[in-house]
């Protein structure tokens, strides 16, 4: 129980610090949320970005997913054959 109280206190401290930082910072934003009528859900813009600017991270991500897949299978398979 005392542990939970300490954890809660620490979490609240963290929240206080972060909230303070957020409130006291002046954020530079656009005046109006951008609305592209031709591309309401941003799919086109995102797709273009993924396959031009971020194509290498995208490919790397595919490798990461493959690695995760293989790793998961390896870790979770039963060790009967050993």
């Amino acid at each position, binding site marked *: 129980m005392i542990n939970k109280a300490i954890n809660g206190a620490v979490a609240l401290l963290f929240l206080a610090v972060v909230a303070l930082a957020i409130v006291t910072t002046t954020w530079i934003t656009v005046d109006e*949320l951008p609305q592209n009528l031709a591309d309401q859900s941003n799919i086109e813009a995102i797709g273009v970005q993924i396959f031009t600017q971020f194509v290498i991270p995208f490919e790397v991500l595919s490798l990461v997913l493959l690695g995760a897949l293989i790793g998961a299978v390896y870790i979770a398979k039963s060790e009967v054959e050993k």
Partner: protein
Amino acid sequence: MMAVDIAGIGELIMFALVSTLTIIFSILVVTAKDVVRASLSLIVTLVSVAGIYVLLNAQFIGMVQILIYVGGIGVLILFAVMLTTQELKGGSDD
């Protein structure tokens, strides 16, 4: 002018609704006694986060959130809960 205000207020109400949902259910995730209940609250949290994305005009991310998070990770975590809970273990795997 008036119309804009009304739209703004509507947006604010939507935001309040969705963010309240998010916060309440995410608190449930860490406080619920039952793990199954916690994981179901997590799924609700994820859905409401998708709502926030839609509010932010990122509909595609919202869709992806529902597809991958709710559809994939949510089900995965439910599986994890089912497979690793002692009471439910009998005969489920092996």
